[in-house]
């Protein structure tokens, strides 16, 4: 029963994918959209069932399907593990997935390849489910690469534009760099523990006495690199902003709510490994904090509405990694969930705006949309408040927990994180003000077409906004349902409710104040002073550095892309020809010898006989006189 249901859960989106690929075109756009949506919704329903079951029984469901890969010292099964973590993840993957599918029916309706879009989305959900419910690291890896593929396909969905294709390729390749790390981590774990299965691994680690901590640390670090790639952390984050080339629902689903959290999922999944590698945890924490700050600063000056959100996502993911690094896995998970709600809402909202403006993404050409796009505005506002950490919105609770944990461990990290949240509040409200307030700055033609989006678009917005508002309830500081739910996963005792003393309240207050300051500055700048970001060419000073994302892309280009291309050219033009001519060189030598030899073959009998005699004398001398 469970096996069948799990298969249904997994295969429903896959069937949707197949159906849409083969018949999507013929059955029409709406129908293909509906089928796509229904399959994901079906998965969601099954997830709900499993959620109920797990909540009650509290025992993970293990499903083995078949042997997959045989390694000398262990075997990898194709199997599923449905436990608290995976079901939780499934909930928002399929849940938000369903909502975004609904949204896309309308959003993508004008696109001629809509069936393909749904096919890819379904495929993505399929792979995401695989990633989450896999019972071992290799099945996770299937999903891991699979979602990367879908991300590639969807970023490059409008494949006629080579810039988009470049972005897609970049995303895939940077993901692959991480994937290599993940693979290395898998190799080390495999050879250390002779298993890749989570459950066995956990027993092996917790039961073992003398573990090879050195190699475990290396494994953990390698796995972390994998997570970095997928979850867009420094130094592998640059693909995520570029990934905004894809349609907005894609950004919402893949690049905000689900796929990019795979890294967090994986680290949480293997928390017992990471717990053994405190050095790596420190690195994770530092990387997370730095990423969150760097991304936030870049987000400050971006003018593309989706870019801002993208950097915001990077920044928020950084916060989650901070939590992971500090061992507060459940906090990170909490933030993943709330972030999924509000960021998905924000992206979908921005999509709604872009939809209304027929593809315009530059905030400098927006403004005043509050009046025409009421629902969008309100949901957007709620989500912005949530991300800015204003109570009682969900973001407040999750972010506050992170900050609190950070404060406990390291004040510097706390400061960085707080600064990042202050900046978050600022840029989010900058975005909000520039988009929805004041007068419309676009063309008249655009203005005449302004409209609120249809209900298929607003419905998911509303649902998500509600979730973004109330999502914090699942883990209140004093009474955390989430912590209890997840506790079987962690070897360490979950941080039970903090002793709520003055420090904690003070921290909370600081966080809120920081958020409010950010909002306030944005208000004064964009509402009071009525500023609009200047044109690209006029950006100067540090803003320019920020606007150009610290020139990291250029730096990477010079350091890696150009050098490798240069190397390729060098190899192609010089090394290959040299190697080739080395072989031909022998031929040339032989030919030259032949050419010289032909001169010897002069046709003169005298010469021939002369050589004859010389040869004869040499042989006789050698045989009889040389002794």
């Amino acid at each position, binding site marked *: 029963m469970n096996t069948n249901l799990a298969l249904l859960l997994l295969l429903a989106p896959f069937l949707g994918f197949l159906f849409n690929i083969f018949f999507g075109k013929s059955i029409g756009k709406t129908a293909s959209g509906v089928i796509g949506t229904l399959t994901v919704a079906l998965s969601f329903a099954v997830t709900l069932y499993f959620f109920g079951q797990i909540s009650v029984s509290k025992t993970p469901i293990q499903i083995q399907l078949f042997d997959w890969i045989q390694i000398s010292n262990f075997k990898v099964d194709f199997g599923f593990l449905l436990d608290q973590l995976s079901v939780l993840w499934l909930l928002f993957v399929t849940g938000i997935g369903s909502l975004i599918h609904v949204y896309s029916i309308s959003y993508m309706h004008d696109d001629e390849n809509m069936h393909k879009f749904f096919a890819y989305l379904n495929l993505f959900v399929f792979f995401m489910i695989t990633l989450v419910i896999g019972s071992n690291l290799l099945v996770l890896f299937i999903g891991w690469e699979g979602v990367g593929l879908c991300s590639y396909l969807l970023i490059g969905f409008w494949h006629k534009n080579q810039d988009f294709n470049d972005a897609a390729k970049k995303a895939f390749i940077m993901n692959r760099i991480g994937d290599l790390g993940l693979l290395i981590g898998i190799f080390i774990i495999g050879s250390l523990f002779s298993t890749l299965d989570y459950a066995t691994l956990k027993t092996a680690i917790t039961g073992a006495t003398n573990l090879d901590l050195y190699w475990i640390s290396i494994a953990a670090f390698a796995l972390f690199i994998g997570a970095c790639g997928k979850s867009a952390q420094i130094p592998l984050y640059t693909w995520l902003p570029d990934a905004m080339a894809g349609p907005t629902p894609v950004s919402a689903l893949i690049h905000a709510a689900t796929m990019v959290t795979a890294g967090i999922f994986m680290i949480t999944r293997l928390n017992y490994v990471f717990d053994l590698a405190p050095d790596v945890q420190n690195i994770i924490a530092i990387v997370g904090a730095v990423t969150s700050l760097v991304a936030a600063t870049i987000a400050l000056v971006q003018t593309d509405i989706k870019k801002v959100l993208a950097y915001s996502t990077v920044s928020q993911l950084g916060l989650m990694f901070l939590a992971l690094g500090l061992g507060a896995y459940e906090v990170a998970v909490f933030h993943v969930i709330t972030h999924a709600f509000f960021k998905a809402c924000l992206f979908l909202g921005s999509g709604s705006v872009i939809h209304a403006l027929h593809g315009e993404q530059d905030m400098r050409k927006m403004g005043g949309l509050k009046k025409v796009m009421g629902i969008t505005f309100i949901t957007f506002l709620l989500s912005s408040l949530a991300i800015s950490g204003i109570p009682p919105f969900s973001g407040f609770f999750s972010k506050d927990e992170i900050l609190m944990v950070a404060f406990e461990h390291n004040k510097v990290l706390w400061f960085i994180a707080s600064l990042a949240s202050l900046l978050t509040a600022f840029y989010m409200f900058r975005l909000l003000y520039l988009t929805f307030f004041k007068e419309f700055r676009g063309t008249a033609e655009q203005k005449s077409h302004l409209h609120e989006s249809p209900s298929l678009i607003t419905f998911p917005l509303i649902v998500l906004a509600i979730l973004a508002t109330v999502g914090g309830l699942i883990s209140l500081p004093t009474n955390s349902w989430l912590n209890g739910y997840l506790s079987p996963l962690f070897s360490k005792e979950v941080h039970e409710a903090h002793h709520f003393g003055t420090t904690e309240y003070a921290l909370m207050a600081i966080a809120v104040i920081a958020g409010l300051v950010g909002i306030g500055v944005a208000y004064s700048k964009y509402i009071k002073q009525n500023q609009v970001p200047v044109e690209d060419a006029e950006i100067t000073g540090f803003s320019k550095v920020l606007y150009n994302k610290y020139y990291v892309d250029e730096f990477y280009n010079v350091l890696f892309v150009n050098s490798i291309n240069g190397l390729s050219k060098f190899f192609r033009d010089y090394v290959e020809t040299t190697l080739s001519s080395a072989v031909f060189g022998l031929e040339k030598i032989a030919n030259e010898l032949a050419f010289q030899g*032909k001169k010897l073959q002069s*046709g003169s*009998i*005298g010469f021939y006989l002369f050589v004859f005699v010389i040869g004869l004398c040499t042989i006789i001398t050698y045989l009889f006189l040389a002794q």
Partner: protein
Amino acid sequence: MNNILNEIGIENYIFLSVILFSIGVFGVLYRRNAIIVFMSIEIMLNAVNLLFVAFSTYHQDAQGQVFVFFSMAVAAAEVAVGLAILVSIFRNLGSIDINNLKNLKG
């Protein structure tokens, strides 16, 4: 009958023969007139014949001399064929200078 080689010594015949043979070789290399070259070859063969006879005496054995007959037969046959070739070249080229025969080379 006394062995005449007691008086002369087989070495002397060998040296004589070698020198004569070498003269033949020299002639083959030195001259360009094909007929003279033929003659030089005859000198070489005769040098060997001489040595055969000397060895025949040395061994007191008739076979060496018999071999000289064969050698002569061979020489005669070679000369016949060689001159026939020569004549036909002369008919074609009007010359028997072997230096003119360098069409085949390379």
